[in-house]
Every structure is written in C-alpha cells, then in structure tokens.
C-alpha cells in the first residue's frame, strides 16, 4: 500500500505547488528569453570583403535534391569570395538534431553559419552561443527566431508568391472561369499563407470572374496528389486551371493531365522545379509556372554572411551590400533580405535552368 501512498503524496504535492502559483507563461512574457543580440557595432559600407572566411552551411537535412541546389549556389559564392566552404547537417529533419552540428561549428571557429532552422527556437541557444563567439549567423528557407540570427534570406515574400500565382492562373484561364488549388498538407504554414494571399487577390474586382471551387490536399505525396488531381477534374468538369503551390503537387497533376483527355483543356500552374517540369512544358501540358532560383538563395546567403563578417553590414534595416552577380541588396525589417520576385518558367526560357 506504500506505493499508492507515494502516488497520492506526489499528486498532493503537485496540487499544492499549483495552488501557491509559480512561474507561468504569462508571468515570463515580455522577459528577454534569448541572449541579447551581439553588440552590433557600426557598419562600414566601404570595408573590403575579407578573404579566407570559413562559411559553413547547415541545411534542414542532407541529401535532399532541392537543398543540394541551394547549397550548390552557396559553394559557388564561397569560391568567388575565396573562402572555405563547408557543408554539414543531419540525415533527419528533427527539431533538435541541428544543435550538435552548430556546437561543432562553434568549436571549429567558423566565421559564418548559414542555417535553415528545423525549429526556430530549438537552435536558438546554440546560435546565440555562436554569435557570442563572433560567428555571423545567416538563416535561409526557414528562419530561426529573430533574436538569434543576424540576417534571414527570404526566397520571396508571401505576398509576392500569392500575387504571382493568381496572376498566372488568371492569364491561363483567360480572365474568367473555375480554378482549384492542389496544396500540400492542410497545416503547411507556407502553403497556407500563400493561399491566404491568393484568396485576398481573388476577392479583388479585377479577378471577380475567377472562381476558386476547391482546395485539395495531396500531402506532398506523389500518389495522393495524383489522385487528388484526378478527383478535381472529375468533380469540376468546367475547371480551367489547377494551381499547385508545391513542387510535388504540380508534377503529379501535370503527369495526370498530360496522359488524360484533359490535356490542352485544363491548365496546370504553380511552383515547380524546372527539371521536374521540363517534359510537361515541352509537351504543352504546362504553359507557365514559377519558382525562385534555389541556387541564388545559397549564393546570396554567402555574400550576406561575408558582408556581415567583414563589417560592411550589421543586419540593420536599410543597410546595403553587393551580392556578386545578383547585384545590390538592401536589408529589410528584422534583418530580412528578400531574394526577389519568383522567376516564371515557360517553354521559351526553361532550358536555361538546371535544378
């Protein structure tokens, strides 16, 4: 019976503790939970770019084709900067697996860490440790909490992507008709924010004749997306355009349409990889789709890191720096650097891109 008594004591203890209050979420709100930003110092726009900088890339996980293109662009830039390129990363995209890699990079005294955070907060304490050690931290793809990085390379603004998707859909539909969206998962943050912008755009008078009939979810699974595309076309015989803002969805939908009687009648557009979409563009299934150039993301991140490390910029809003072939960039609010509007791919230009 002592066992039961023990449990009872524990439960009573817990209740007693809760009764006398303590540290709660609301009582800690407003407290600075992260280490203070490193003393920024003053930016010197004329400082020369340092050579021999050690720039390390830590993507969400290794061996992902999209990531490979991104860090490939970074490798090119680090070469141009005459720096030392390094790529490390976990094989799984779990929240905490990146932390030991950051710790290792601190020990190796890298100058810049370019990281796509699997969890915005889990990496924070170690990124701040890195910054205390004088390492500049640039995030790309997935930002870490603002308090623990110097700059964030955003591939495009949510607004820009949403607008571009509606613009393409409208052009393909000839300004009026039924459109449908084939997204990834119902809770994918980036997908949902783009869809939100699309809805706002569709509500505007100039798009009044476009009707969004359905948002389907293919879960970023090829087979599921294929079936969902098929379902959309069967349920909505007047459908003119399927917009798929995910590389898996757009490829699956194109594969279905290209082999079906809908080919030429229903347009597919969205966000896709040129190498995956090339054959559908060539066979006429897809007239246009868009994406940012992932290689440019990695490329821009290296130049931003080098500019930070050389003291040209500190990450404050309004500072400018040159990013090699991409030209000049200005840092936006919260240290955000936007790569630019997405690139539209058509039969005319698709052969210029290899990723």
């Amino acid at each position: 019976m002592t066992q039961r008594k023990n449990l009872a004591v524990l439960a009573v203890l817990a209740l007693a503790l809760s009764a006398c209050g303590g540290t709660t979420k609301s009582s800690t709100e407003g407290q600075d939970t992260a280490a203070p930003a490193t003393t920024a110092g003053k930016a010197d726009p004329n400082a020369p770019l340092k050579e021999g900088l050690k720039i390390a890339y830590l993507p969400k996980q290794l061996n992902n084709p999209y990531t490979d293109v991104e860090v490939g662009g970074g490798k090119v830039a680090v070469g141009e900067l005459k720096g030392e390129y390094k790529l490390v990363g976990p094989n799984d995209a779990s929240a905490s697996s990146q932390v030991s890699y950051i710790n290792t990079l601190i020990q190796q005294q890298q100058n810049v860490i370019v990281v796509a955070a699997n969890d915005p907060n889990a990496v924070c304490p170690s990124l701040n440790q890195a910054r205390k050690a004088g390492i500049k931290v640039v995030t790309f793809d997935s930002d870490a909490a603002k308090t623990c990085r110097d700059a964030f390379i955003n591939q495009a603004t949510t607004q820009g992507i949403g607008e571009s998707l509606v613009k393409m859909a409208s052009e393909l539909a000839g300004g009026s008709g039924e459109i449908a969206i084939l997204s990834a998962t119902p809770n994918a943050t980036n997908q949902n924010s783009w869809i939100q912008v699309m809805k706002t755009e569709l509500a505007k008078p100039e798009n009044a004749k476009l009707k969004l009939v359905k948002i389907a979810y293919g879960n970023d699974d090829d087979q599921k997306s294929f079936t969902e595309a098929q379902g959309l076309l069967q349920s909505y015989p007047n459908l003119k355009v399927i917009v798929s803002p995910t590389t898996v969805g757009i490829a699956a939908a194109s594969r279905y349409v290209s082999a079906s009687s809908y080919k030429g009648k229903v347009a597919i557009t969205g966000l896709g990889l040129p190498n995956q979409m090339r054959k559908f563009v060539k066979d006429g299934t897809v007239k246009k789709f868009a994406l940012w150039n992932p290689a440019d993301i990695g490329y821009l991140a290296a130049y931003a890191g080098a500019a930070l490390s050389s003291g040209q910029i500190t990450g404050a809003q309004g500072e400018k720096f040159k990013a090699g072939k991409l030209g000049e960039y200005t840092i936006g609010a919260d240290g955000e650097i936007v790569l630019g509007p997405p690139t539209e791919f058509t039969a005319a230009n698709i052969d210029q891109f290899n990723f």
Partner: protein
Amino acid sequence: MSAELTATRAARFANWNVAIIAITVVVLIVAAATVDNFGTSQNFGFLVLDVLPIAIIALPMTLVIVTGEIDLSVASTLGLSSAVMGYLWNANQPIETIIPLCLLLGAVLGAVNGFFVTVLGLPSLAVTIGTLALYRGLAFVVLGDSAVADFPPAYTNWVTGTIGSSPIPNVLIIIVVLAVVFGVVLHATPIGRAVFAVGASEQAARFAGVRPGRLKFWLYVASGLVSGLAGVLWTLRYSSARADNGAGLELAVVAAVLLGGVSIFGGKGALPGVIAGVVLLGSLQNALRLSDVSNEALNVVTGVLLIASVLGPNLANRLRRT
C-alpha cells in the same frame, strides 16, 4: 549454478567492464590529443548535454534488461512528457507544477508497460513496441505539429549552464546522482540481487522468495519516470516542446547499454560498464563530427562498434570453452 561457473562469469564480466572502461579512457585521451577543440571545457559541456538523455535513460534500462526484459517506449515517453509540458505551459500552468506532473506522467506510462508485462504476462518487446507507437501518437494528439517555446529563462539557463564559473555543466549533477542511486540499488542492495536473480532464472528467483512481477513492475515505473525527466530536460535544453522530441532515441539507449556489456538475454551486466558505453558512444560521435567525418561514416562506425561489443564477449566465451 556451481560456484566455479559463477566465478568465471563474474570474471568475464568484470573483464568486459574493465575493457570497456579502458577503451573509453583511451578514446578520450586519443581524441583530446589529436582532435582540435575536443579537449576544451566548452566542448565538454556540449558533450555532456548531448549524452544527457541517453545517459539517464540507460540507467533504468540497464536494470530492465538485466531482468531479461526491455523497454522500447522510453523515447516516446520522453516525447509525450515534452508534449504535455508544452501543452500545460501554453495553458498558463506554473512550471513548478508542470515538471512534477511530467515526472508523474512518465511514471504512469511506465506503470502501464509494467501492467501489461507483469499482470497480463505479455512479452515486453511486443508491449513496448506497442506503447512506443501509442505514446508517440498521444504526443501528437496533445501538441500536434506545433512547437512550444519561451520556457522560463531561469530553467532553460540552468539546464544549459555550468556550476558557477566552473566548466562543469549543471546537468552533470543529475547524471551523477541518478548513476549513484541506480548503481547502489543494482550492486549493493537486495533489490539488485533480485534483479540479477530474475534475469538469470525467473523460476529459481521465485523459489528464492523474489516476486519477479512486482520487481519488474517497479522497474518499468522507474524507467518511465526517468524518461519523463529526460523529456523535461530535453524541452528545457532546446527551449522547444515538440511531439517528435527524442524520436529514435530508444535505439541509442539500448545500444549504449549493450555496448556497456549488459547481456540482452538478461542476468548479466554492470552499471560502470554502461556509463563507459554511453561516454564512449557520445565522445566518439563528438570527436568524429569535429573531424568532419560524414554522417554515413559516423553511422558505420557506431554500427561496427555495437556489433563488436555484442560479438566480443561471446567470442571470448567460446574461445574459453574450446
């Protein structure tokens, strides 16, 4: 069991314990001498934090495996504890209540395992594979895909911090205290002798007055409790409560325990070897990463090490018999 056989067995396992500790010490010395930045106090702190969950969960796991059972649900218990911690924190409960509740939750989850294994007499491998999936599933029910951050800095800083201005991480205290508790229980109390007896022969132990069911039940409770604690520490270390925290950790724990010389068939093992096993795995990974060895090579090294650790004692045994 003849006295002679007991003596050779004792000798063999004493040997493996000595061997694994010696290997660990050698690896530490070689790494400190050859790997840049391995021997720094900062790296020592990182190393301790990296092995923390494996180190503490390996302690009750050792006792469970010595009785001839296994608990594969530990990482899922960690994840559920973390998810509940995040949920309660979001619900504006005080952290001083949340932490004991998460420990209690861990103990209850362990008791569920214990109930299935001892009362219903189901094989622990099957039961804990089941609860591995169940507890992880519940964690996602509680918190979904979201992450909860912003835990109080006083707590997160304590977990990642060091004692005063020394380079000794605070969490080392937890590891040492738990290691001493489990070490004493296993090697210096009647409970420990019962653990070995049950692992060697449950029938014989029963005749000797041990109640194997009750013993195992409480070992599962201990395993759950420590896993719950690991969930709390994990959450505070990363300032991030997530349902997928610690996924896959159960294999690392079992690996460390086996590397430490505990027999998967039960009845044999010692805690110092297990602690050496944890340190060896952790420091090898750390040193190889600092040397820029790829993930794939790192996995291969760990795998080879584990196979060797299981083969080693067996081969030695066979050679001795022939």
